[in-house]
């Protein structure tokens, strides 16, 4: 399949080849470069897709860091494979010894983490740190030994630290493509099993599934991706390809299926652009280039994704704050009129602000929002509620009081404190809850009729700017 990708790329490339404006980076990007670049780009894109898919399950199973240990442990594995190859055949550069070496050591690393974790007083993070650094250091030491051997310098094993896709052989690319396709296929076929394994392993076991076997499959997939990914991305950064795309995808969706597609997309995109970039830049290893591109995709996702991104959350918070500010002002104006016994009198908002203890900014924000909604209008004497504003203010006061009464009677909160509790919740009361609260108050005789505004459970006169001495029950205030 990666051959197909490369050849469709080649056709597209033939069309684009003549356009000089693409430049070397553009040619690499659109499969118009040399044949070798084309198939390397196709191979790494497949790797990016596979690691996006597999990484999603690793992330949800909270095993992402384990794959970091795998990647670092694979390096001495490659070296060991090389040494065994030299010893057995006189040449260690064959993939037939290098790939099994990486895979076996990757599994050894994972097993070492498991064993260390079962010891008392070694937690998983410490175990991963120990395994990752010790295996990697051993790998670097072995690389040093290999460099001094005859012909060892030409083995090019040092490129496995950061990855150098441009120098990959056809065999390496083929191995990468096959492993990537198998892993991606596994994620698609085993979607249901992996989903339950990650969400609720105890329930999966109660169904008779072996979570050990399923975890083993997941681990095998990780080993496969890491092993072949060493050539393209390198031992240090291969974990980034497994973590960053799914972590970025999580900002965009609440559906696992969609998350898999987006993670595969980001992984494939990062590998595509990163490989093309490193193919044309002098001395830029592929691994860092891919990870920087994926990191950019992560940053964009974190900021801009509509469902869970930072900007969207800030926008929602701002909208909520403006709504709350407006509702507070409306209720304050309603209660002022209520205490005075007249709705039409203009209100001096500066007095109101001081009595209610708002900052000037609070009031300005609330006023801006109420003006925008057409709730208030100003004349020479002060501010008044419009008809629409009065209706909104009355509804808001009603919700506030319903909740206050509920808190006072059911949550056993003192009436002098209910105002605070009600301030937060009144903005989010839904229709169903309002109905329920009303029915409750009516049954206890606090409320004469549905739709009425109940009396405040606490005195309002020290709150509003009116002159009411408290003799008139506020609820009898005429419209």
């Amino acid at each position: 399949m990666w051959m197909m990708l490369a050849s469709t790329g080649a056709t597209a490339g033939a069309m684009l080849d003549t356009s000089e404006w693409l430049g070397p980076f553009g040619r690499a990007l659109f499969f118009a470069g040399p044949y070798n670049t084309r198939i390397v780009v196709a191979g790494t894109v497949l790797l990016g897709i596979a690691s996006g898919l597999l990484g999603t399950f690793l992330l949800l199973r909270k095993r992402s860091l384990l794959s970091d240990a795998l990647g670092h442990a694979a390096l001495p594995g490659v070296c060991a494979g090389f040494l065994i190859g030299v010893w057995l055949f006189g040449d260690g550069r064959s993939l037939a010894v290098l790939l099994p070496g990486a895979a076996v050591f990757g599994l050894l690393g994972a097993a070492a983490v498991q064993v260390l974790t079962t010891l008392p007083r070694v937690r998983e993070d410490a175990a991963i740190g120990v395994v990752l650094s010790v295996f990697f250091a051993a790998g670097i030491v072995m690389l040093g030994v290999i460099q001094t051997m005859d012909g060892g310098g030409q083995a090019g094993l040092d490129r496995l630290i950061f990855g150098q896709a441009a120098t990959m052989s056809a065999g390496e690319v083929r191995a990468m493509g096959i492993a990537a396709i198998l892993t991606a296929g596994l994620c698609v076929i085993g979607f249901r099993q992996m989903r339950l394994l990650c969400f609720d392993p105890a329930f999966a076991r109660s169904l008779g599934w072996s979570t050990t076997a399923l975890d083993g499959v997941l681990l095998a997939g990780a080993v496969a991706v890491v092993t072949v990914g060493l050539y393209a991305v390198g031992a240090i950064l291969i974990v980034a390809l497994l973590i960053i795309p799914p972590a970025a995808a999580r900002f965009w969706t609440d559906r696992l299926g969609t998350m898999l597609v987006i993670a595969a997309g980001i992984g494939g995109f990062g590998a595509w652009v990163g490989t093309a970039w490193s193919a044309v830049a002098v001395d830029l290893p592929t691994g860092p280039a891919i990870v920087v591109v994926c990191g950019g995709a992560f940053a964009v996702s974190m900021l801009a994704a509509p469902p869970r991104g930072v900007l969207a959350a800030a926008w929602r918070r701002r909208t909520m704050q403006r709504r709350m500010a407006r509702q507070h002002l409306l209720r304050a104006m309603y209660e002022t009129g209520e205490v005075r016994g007249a709705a039409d009198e203009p209100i001096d908002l500066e007095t109101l602000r001081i009595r209610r203890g708002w900052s000037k900014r609070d009031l300005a924000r609330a006023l801006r929002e109420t003006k925008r909604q057409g709730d208030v209008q100003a004349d020479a004497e002060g501010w008044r509620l419009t008809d629409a504003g009065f209706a909104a203010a009355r509804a808001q006061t009603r919700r506030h009081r319903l909740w206050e009464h509920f808190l006072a009677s059911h949550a056993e909160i003192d009436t002098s404190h209910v105002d605070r509790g009600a301030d937060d919740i009144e903005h989010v009361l839904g229709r169903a809850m309002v109905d329920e609260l009303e029915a409750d108050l009516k049954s206890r005789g606090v409320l004469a009729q549905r739709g009425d505004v109940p009396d405040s459970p606490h005195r309002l006169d020290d709150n509003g700017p009116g002159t009411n001495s408290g003799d008139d029950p506020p609820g009898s205030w005429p419209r």
Partner: protein
Amino acid sequence: MNDRPDSRDARKAAEAPLGPEHSPLSPLSVHNMTVAYHRRPVLWDIDYDAPEGGLIAIVGPNGAGKSTLIKAALDLVPRASGEVRIFGRPYRQQRRLVGYVPQRETVDWDFPVTALDVVTMGRYGRIGWLRPISRAHRRAAQVFLEQVGMGEFADRQISRLSGGQQQRVFLARALAQEAELYFMDEPLAGVDATTERTIIDILRSIRADGRTCIVVHHDLQTVRQYFDHVVLLNGRIVAAGPVSEVFTEENLARTYGGKLTLLEEAGQALAHGRVTGEPNDDA
């Protein structure tokens, strides 16, 4: 819903009972079971036969091994000794007859799945290993979601549900298993009044079908009202039987009384000795 031919047949084909004191057709027979975590015994010599068609509460203090009892019966934790039979056979042969509601806190509710996805998981035991989830299974899941009053939340991501609603989703998933015997781990912990009513109604309808529920329960006030049988547990079974006979002041005092039971002390000494290699003098 009422005819489950395979399960009724499977139940009749019971093997020989575990011993003369055990009934061959009990939904759950536990014989001489001991469970230990890191050599520290959590459950000691459990012998119990659950009555068929009962609502059975497992009650006991924190750390009494209530969840462990369920998990050991479901082969989720290894038994140090003893045997368990579900309708007369080992659990691995009877999985289709058993439904399970784990504790709500054991899963990550921020997981990217919808309420309907979770309920559909209750059908996974019936779907072939490589077969896709059929529309029929999704429809069935929707029906069970509606039974717990959550039909309109099918497409809601589970972190956007309240705690009580999440608990009802878990219950719907167990209902989707269409089991004969249910194990439920604290289904009423920290839920709102509506959810508690819904769950109790469903437990009663399960009992009305002649099916059995074994429920870890934390609220002593409601044991009499909700359950007909009770197992008082504190490392061992203090008492078990009909609520009216067993749920007495005296038995409760024996279950909850005392700070450390002798068993616990022995267990701690064992665990301590394992780490330091020395006898525990400060206990």
